[in-house]
Each structure stands twice: as C-alpha cells, then as structure tokens.
C-alpha cells in the first residue's frame, strides 16, 4: 500500500513537474528568441542571429533615423496612459457601484462591461470607425483613446471587483454605524484597501493598450501612428531588426515598471487576487 502510494506520488511529481516545465518553456522561448535576435550583427531579422552587436538599439535610439518609431512609441504611450486613466476612473467607480449589487440590472451592466473581452476586436474597430465617421468625427488620438478604453477597462474592473469582494463588509458597516459618511468611508476605508487591485488591473490594461492591433488598425491615421501598426509594417517587407530592438526596450521598460509596482503596491499579489 505504502509503496504504491509513493509510486503514485512519484508519478505525480514527474508528470506535474514536466508539464509545468513545458509551460514555462513555451512562455519564455519566444521572449528569449526576440531578445537574442535584437542583438544581431546581421542586416535582417534572422534567428539564430549572426554575431553580437548593439547596432539595432543604436539605430533605434538614433533620433534622426528612427524618428517615426519614436513618434509611434509616444502616441502609443499617450493613448495607453489616457485610456488607462479613464479606465481607472470609470472602471473602479463602476466596480464599486456594481460589485455587491445582485440586482438583475447590475449583473447585466457588469456583463456588458466585461464583454469587450469576448468581442472580436476587429469587429469593434470597424464598427467604431463606421460609427465615428457617421456622426461626423474625424479620426484622432481621442477616438483611439476612447476605443482602447472600452477594450481595456474590463481588466481594471476584474481586479478591482476581486479586491472588493474580498473586503469585509463588516468594515463598511462598522464605519458607517460609527457615523462616518458614505464618502468618508469610501475615501478612508474602501479606496485604500482596493487601490492595489485597481493598479494591478491598470497595469494589465496599459499593456493591452500598448499592444492593441485591431482597434488601432481602423482608428489610427498619419497623424496618429501607433506602435504595433508601425511594427507590422516594418515586418512586412523589410525584416528590420529594429522591431526586435523595440520589443527589447518595451520588455525592459515593462519589467522595470512591474518591479516598481511590486515594491509599491505588491503587484504580483494583486494580479492573482
């Protein structure tokens, strides 16, 4: 009996361990490949890279050679910042309003707010372009911000609602029964407790906006060039290694951001909440 059990446990460790290792491998391999390629000495995006050099990073940071990439980066950052900002504002408000409300309408609204996660982005992009132009708006960064807000706000709502559902309702009740106003309770009790949840969602939303293709594809213009669209163009006929270098920079930046958020709001804990 005992031996059979240890055999079973051994097989458990082996199977679970190797599957998890495979998962890690699949997650990490593309990142490693892109990062390695970004240091190529060759003239094209090729793996394995030939030789080691920083020339593509140098070219990327060269203000005159890569001005358009810089501009696309800047546009993407601006859109991500604004759409995440609005997402934080509207999304956390909506979570606070709905997370504990079991009314049928509240559930419907909640489902609506989460639905961009299951809606084909391409469809929304096209629908948005048709709609905006029909009501007479010219394509602009503002419209891209609006579009990105819609498709990224679910991330914020999800983590925020998770934080709210972990709040002890007794806290609220006791605060209010002690005579604190609703706003006071919100500001001093609720918000500080759910803030890390909001930030974790905001991080995911920000990354989703930076990498959004379907909405930007339809809504971006010459004046509002977005990074993924530019990279897609660079990949198409030139195999320009700078797109690997852009990724290298993005990954490093995102990684640093994650580290900072880890120290300040405990990002990893919040993302699993």
């Amino acid at each position: 009996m005992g031996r059979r059990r240890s055999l079973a446990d051994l097989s458990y460790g082996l199977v679970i361990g190797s599957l998890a290792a495979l998962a890690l491998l699949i997650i990490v391999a593309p990142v490693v490949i892109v990062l390695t390629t970004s240091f190529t000495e060759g003239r094209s995006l090729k793996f394995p890279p030939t030789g080691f050099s920083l020339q593509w990073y140098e070219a990327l940071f060269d203000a005159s050679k890569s001005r358009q990439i810089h501009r696309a980066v800047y546009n993407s950052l601006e859109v991500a910042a604004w759409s995440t900002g609005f997402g934080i504002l509207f999304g956390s408000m909506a979570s606070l309003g709905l997370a504990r409300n079991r009314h049928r309408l509240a559930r419907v609204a909640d489902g609506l707010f989460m639905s961009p996660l299951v809606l084909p982005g391409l469809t929304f992009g096209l629908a948005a372009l048709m709609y905006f132009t029909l009501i007479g708006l010219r394509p602009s960064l503002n419209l891209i911000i609006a579009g990105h807000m819609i498709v990224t706000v679910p991330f914020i709502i999800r983590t925020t609602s998770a934080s709210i559902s972990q709040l002890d309702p007794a806290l609220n009740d006791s605060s209010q029964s002690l005579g604190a106003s609703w706003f006071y309770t919100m500001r001093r009790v609720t918000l500080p407790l759910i803030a890390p949840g909001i930030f974790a969602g905001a991080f995911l939303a920000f990354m989703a906006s930076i990498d959004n293709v379907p909405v930007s594809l339809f809504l971006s213009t010459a004046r509002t060039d977005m990074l993924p669209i530019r990279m897609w163009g660079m990949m198409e006929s030139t195999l320009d290694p700078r797109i690997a270098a852009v990724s290298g920079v993005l990954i490093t930046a995102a990684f640093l951001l994650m580290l900072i958020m880890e120290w300040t709001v405990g990002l990893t804990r919040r993302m699993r909440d």
Partner: protein
Amino acid sequence: MFSRRRLLAGATALGGAAFLPSIAHAKGSVAAAIYPGTWEEAFRAIVAPALKKKDSVDLELQPLFAVDQVAKAKAARGAPPFDAFVLDPGPRITAIQDGLFDKIDIKKISNASKLPAGLVDEWGVGVNAQVVGIAYNPKKVPAPKGWKDLFSEPWVSRLGLTGFQTTFGTVSLIEIAKVFGGSETNIEPALVELKKVLPKIAAVGQPAAMPSLFQQGQCDVMYTNTQTVATLKGRGVDIEFVKPETGAITFLTTLHIAKGATDVENAYKYIDIVAGKEVQEALTKPPYNFIPVNKDVPVPSYLPMKSLDEMSSFVRHDWAKINPLRAGWIEKFNKEMAK
C-alpha cells in the same frame, strides 16, 4: 559604439517627441497614405526632405495597404484621413467607382511631360512600375523557368503561396491559370492544379508573413516583385528574381488626390515632386530599389529590362474585368485551399 551620449540623445528624442505634432503643423503639410515597409521608408527618407526643401511642405505619411486606404476613405465618407492615395490598379478602380478621388488638373504637375504616355490620366499619376515574377533561394533550389515549374519537384514542395488579397498574388495566380488553359477571367485551372499538389506545398500564407517564412527557410520559392527581391537581397537574404518564360507581369502604382482632402494644393506639390527626376533617381537606388517612371532616369541594371519602353511587352491585366470577380475568387480560394 553604443555611447552614453547617443543613448541620451535617443531618450531625449523619445521624450521630446511630445512636442513634435504642434511643430509639424507650423507650415503647410500634406498627409499621404503610403504602403508600409519599403515604400514608407523610401518616402520618408527621400520624398519628405525633397518636399520640405522645395515647397516647405511637411509630408506626413500614414502606412496603409491599398485596400485599407480605400476602406478608410470609404468609411470616412467625404472626410478622408489623408490627402493623397497610393494605389495599385485594382483598388484604384474600386476607388474611382466609389468616387473617392478628385480629378487631377494636369497643368499643376510640371513633371507630367517627363512620364511615358499612359501614366497620367484624369484620376491620377503613375509614379512607379512594379514587375512581378518568381523569387527563389539559389542555395536551395535551381532556378525555375516559369509558372509551370512551380508545380513539379523540386520547387513544389518548397513553394510559398499567397491568395488573391494582394495585387501581386492575384496577377501571379492569373498567370498560373493561363499556363494551364485559363484566362484573365477564368482562374479555375490554377485552383485545380494547386489542389492536386496542395499537400506538398510548403506554405500558404499571409503576404505580410512571406518574407519571414522565406528567410527562415519555411519556403524557398514564391511569387513577388523585383523590389522585394532587391530589398531582401540587400538585407543578406539568399534570393534571386526570375522572369517567367511567359513574361514578367507589370502594373503601375499611382498617386491620387482624395476627394475632400484638406490640403489639395500641397497634395499636387507632393505628387509633382514624386514624379520628378531627383526623387525618381534616388528611389531606384538601394535599399529602396524602385522601378523609375521618369524618362530622364536610367533603368537599374538588375532589372529584367533595358529600358522603360521594353516594359510594354510585359504582361498587363485589365482590372476593370478582374475587380468584379475577385471577391468570388477569394471565397473560392478559401474553400479550395481549406484543410
């Protein structure tokens, strides 16, 4: 080589980009759609400075494939997101039918007289010719002679295909159909032959993925244009161009002024400068490798012709006939190729 100073300069540029848009609008500007990739790079490097120097007009380029340009302009219903189109023959006709262009006033294009006959019409100006044929990897397979070779070994199992969504894909498939008894309006034979060898074919892909697939050795033969071949070669990829025995295919790329454009006069200046000798000559040089249209510009030696006139013998297609059929072909291609 990766000095701190340069890094800092780059970082400042990234930060400073915040102020770019407002400066860019200080003088006149023109927003032009441009094909992503080589076209965009070339126009940024050559056309934009030339336009700035001659007319003090800022060129803002928006990378978009031909079909995306038409879709966007159509969606915009009279308020196009750019002032000038760059289009292949198929989308050009669609756009004319949809009324997306302003008519061209030829008097405003001073370089028009330098262009061969047929390049300028009431709707636009031809600024580039494309020549389509077969590209192969000389280290992996021998040179194919023509379209028929693509259906036998050793090429067929190394063949990378694209469908009817691009101009070069469409015209190549038409030529394949012709070899097997089809015509400009009957591509059925091409699909029949493709279907026979389908399990062997190395890749059926998105056009955007083909250069990567080719370079990483997933396929070693594909149809494409001279420009892509020259560009990839310039980046160290093993690739050569073959003019099929039934003739290389050619078509024009044209510039047009969008109806409802905000900067019509600047759009004329833009078109004029692209057709001019200086820009045309610079565009033919590596790494851009355009085929020139201005008669004053010598034809680069790597091209499968000696002079522009010789191109009149190349295969051309009537897109007014092709356009109405293409949607059906795309559907057919889906169904026949689907696993």
